[in-house]
C-alpha cells in the first residue's frame, strides 16, 4: 500500500468539467488512478473521460461511493468545495488551489481536523505514488523525476520538487510516494502529520523533506523524530537559507517573522534530531545513501 492514494482508492473530482479538471483527470486515469465520479453544478449527465458528472458531491457519492476528492476549484470556492466533500464523509481531499484566503485556510484545516479527515494543499501539485496512482498535476511522464522507488518525499514546493527529486533519481533512487503539502502559510496537512503513514509504509525506506524558510513544519518533523514517532532516515533540503529577513520570498508561507522560521533554526533542529540536511540539491542523493547505509550498519550491529 502506498501513502494516501493507491489504485483501489475511489476518487471523485470536483470541478471536473473545467480545463484543468478534465486535463488532469485524464492524466490521473492514465497513471492508474480510479476516478469514479466528477462534480460540476449544473453539468449532471455529462461524461468527462468516461467519468459521469453530478451536480453535487452528495448526489455523486449516492451513486458512486468515493474515498477521496480531488479539487480543481478556484481558490475562493475551495472552502465550500472542501466542506462539501467533508460533509459527504470523504476523508482524503487534495486541493491544488493557489490563493486560498488565509482565514478560509484556517477554517478548512480546523474542519478537517475535527472530522478526522486529511486535506492536502492548497498551493500544491498534489500527491503521487509513481506507477500506482496520482491526485493532482504531476508530469509523471518525466521519468527522470517520477521514477518509482523506495524514497518518500514531502514538499512545500512544486518546481523545486522536480529539481530535488531529479537529483534523488540521478543518484539511483526512486520515489515511493510524494506528498506536496503546499506552499501556503496554513496548509491543510503538515509534514509531521504524514510521518506516521510513511513510518508504517513498507514501500518507503527513507523520507526526503523539501522545506523552506517560514513556519515551523520542519521543526515539527524534528520533534517527531526525537519522539520516535518517525524512525526512518530523513534527508532534508531547505530553500531560503540566504533569504533576507522580513521579505516574503516566493510562497506565501515562506517568510521569516521575528526569529521564527529561519532555515538556520530548522537545520539545527533537524540535525539535532538525527536528520541529514543537504546544502544543495545535488547533495541529497549522496546524503540519502549515507543515511540508508548508516541505518544498515546500525541494523547489522544490533
Amino acid at each position, binding site marked *: 500500500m502506498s501513502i494516501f492514494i493507491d489504485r483501489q482508492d475511489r476518487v471523485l473530482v470536483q470541478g471536473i468539467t473545467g480545463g484543468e479538471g478534465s486535463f488532469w483527470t485524464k492524466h490521473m486515469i492514465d497513471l492508474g488512478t480510479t476516478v469514479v465520479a466528477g462534480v460540476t453544478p449544473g453539468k449532471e449527465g455529462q461524461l468527462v473521460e468516461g467519468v459521469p458528472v453530478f451536480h453535487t458531491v452528495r448526489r455523486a457519492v449516492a451513486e458512486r461511493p468515493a474515498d477521496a476528492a480531488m479539487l480543481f476549484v478556484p481558490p475562493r470556492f475551495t472552502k465550500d468545495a472542501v466542506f462539501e466533500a467533508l460533509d459527504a464523509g470523504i476523508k482524503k481531499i487534495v486541493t491544488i488551489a493557489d490563493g486560498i484566503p488565509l482565514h478560509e485556510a484556517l477554517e478548512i484545516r480546523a474542519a478537517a481536523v475535527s472530522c478526522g479527515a486529511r486535506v492536502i494543499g492548497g498551493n500544491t501539485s498534489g500527491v503521487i505514488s509513481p506507477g500506482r496512482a496520482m491526485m493532482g498535476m504531476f508530469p509523471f511522464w518525466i521519468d527522470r523525476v517520477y521514477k518509482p522507488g523506495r524514497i518518500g518525499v514531502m514538499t512545500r514546493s512544486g*518546481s*523545486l520538487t*522536480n*529539481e530535488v527529486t531529479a537529483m534523488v533519481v540521478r543518484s539511483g533512487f526512486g520515489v515511493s510516494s510524494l506528498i506536496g503539502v503546499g506552499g501556503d*502559510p496554513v496548509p491543510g496537512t503538515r509534514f509531521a502529520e504524514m510521518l506516521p503513514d510513511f513510518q508504517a509504509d513498507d514501500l518507503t525506506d527513507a523520507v526526503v523533506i523539501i522545506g523552506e524558510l517560514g513556519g515551523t513544519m520542519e521543526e515539527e518533523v524534528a520533534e517527531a523524530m526525537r519522539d520516535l514517532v518517525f524512525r526512518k532516515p530523513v534527508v532534508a533540503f531547505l530553500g531560503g537559507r540566504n*533569504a533576507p529577513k522580513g521579505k516574503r520570498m*516566493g510562497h506565501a508561507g515562506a517568510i521569516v517573522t521575528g*526569529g521564527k522560521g529561519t532555515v538556520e533554526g530548522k537545520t539545527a533542529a533537524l540535525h539535532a534530531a538525527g536528520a541529514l540536511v543537504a546544502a544543495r*540539491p545535488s547533495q541529497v542523493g549522496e546524503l540519502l545513501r549515507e543515511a540508508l547505509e548508516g541505518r544498515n550498519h546500525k541494523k547489522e550491529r544490533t
Partner: protein
Amino acid sequence: MKLHEHEAKDVFAKAGIPVPRSLLAADAEGAARAAVAIGFPCVLKAQVLRGGRGKAGLIKLVKSEGEAREVAASLFAGPHEVRKLLVEEAVAIDREVYLSITVDPASAEAVVLACAEGGVEIEELAARAPGKILRERVRLTEGLLPYRARNVAYALGLEGDIAKKVASLLEALWRVFRANDAELAEINPLFITKSGGVVAGDGKLSIDDNALFRQAGREPGRDYYDSDAAFEAAAEGIPYLQFDGDISLMCAGAGLTTVVYDLIVDEGGSVANYLEFGGPNYKKAVRAMELCLKNKPKVILIVTFGTIARADIMAEGITEAILKLKPSCPIVACIRGTGEEKAVEMLRAAGLEPLFDTEEAVRKAVTLAGAARVAGAAKGAVE
C-alpha cells in the same frame, strides 16, 4: 498587503478603537501647519512600511512650529523615501502594553498575543523572554467571545475600568482582524493614559493578498513598493523583490527561485532582483525580461523546471523577449520540465547555450557577472 500606520489607524478608529488625534502631511510646510493644529508637543511619524521606525529616527517629538517644519523637512529629505508624515498629538502615558491578533497555522486558529510590556519588538521578546507573551487562541467560527478578551485583560494585570476598556478594545480589534481578512492586526504600543484611557499608539494591519478581491478599495499603490519595477511587477501579478546586486533572476517556481537565490549567494554572487514567472505567469517572459532589464543587470539567469508551466512555451517567450528587447547582458538559461526537448531547440536557435543543471547554471552566471564587474571596473579605470 501591509497598510501604512495612518490607514491602519483609520480602520481602527472606525471600529471604535481610540487613536490619537492626528493629521496627515505630504510636505514640511503641511507638517508645520498640521502640528500647529494638533498642538505642541506633538509627534511626527514617517509613514513608511518598515519596522523599528523609532530606532531609525523616523519618529520625532517636536515642540514648536519651527521645529516641526525643520524635522519634517529632514525626514522628507532623508534616505527612507518618506512620502507622508502623520502628525499626532503626544499622549500622556501611564504605561504601554502590546496587543495583536494573528494566525496559528498548526492549531488552525487565530491567536491573540499580548504582553504587559508594550513598545518592545515582539519577536525580540519572543526570543528573549517567551514566557512574557500571553497567548489566547480563538476559533474563527466561534469568534473572540468577550470572556476571552477579559482573560487577556486581567492576565495583563489590568484592573477596574482599564481592564474593561482593554477587553472591549480587543473585541474591536477582532472585528478589524476578521472584517479585513488580516494576517496581522497589531497595536504596539497600546497606551494606557494618565487620564485612565486606552489609545492605540501605533497600528499595523496586514491584509491577506488572497482576500484582496473582497476588500473593496484596497489596492496597493506605488508607495507600498520599494522600486518602480516592484510596483509594475505587482500590477502584473508577477512575484518580484528588489535587490541591488548583479544577477537578475528570471525563474519559474517560488521554491526553485528561492534556491537559486541561495546558490548565488553561496557562490559569492549577488542578486539584482528576484522574479518568478512560473505558475499563471509562464507566458509572460517578455514582460519578465523587461522588468529584469530595468535593473541593468550584468547577467540574466533563467532557471525553470516546470510542469504546467511548459518549458517550450517559456522558451518561446524568451526567444521573443530577446528579439524584442535585445538585452546587452549575457543570458544563462537552464530550462527543464514538460516540453523541454522543444525548448532546448528553440533556445539554441535564439543563440543561447541551454544548461541542464541548476548549480552549473548558477556558477556560470556568477562567473559571468564577476567578469563583467572586472570588465566594468577596468572600463571605468580606462575612461
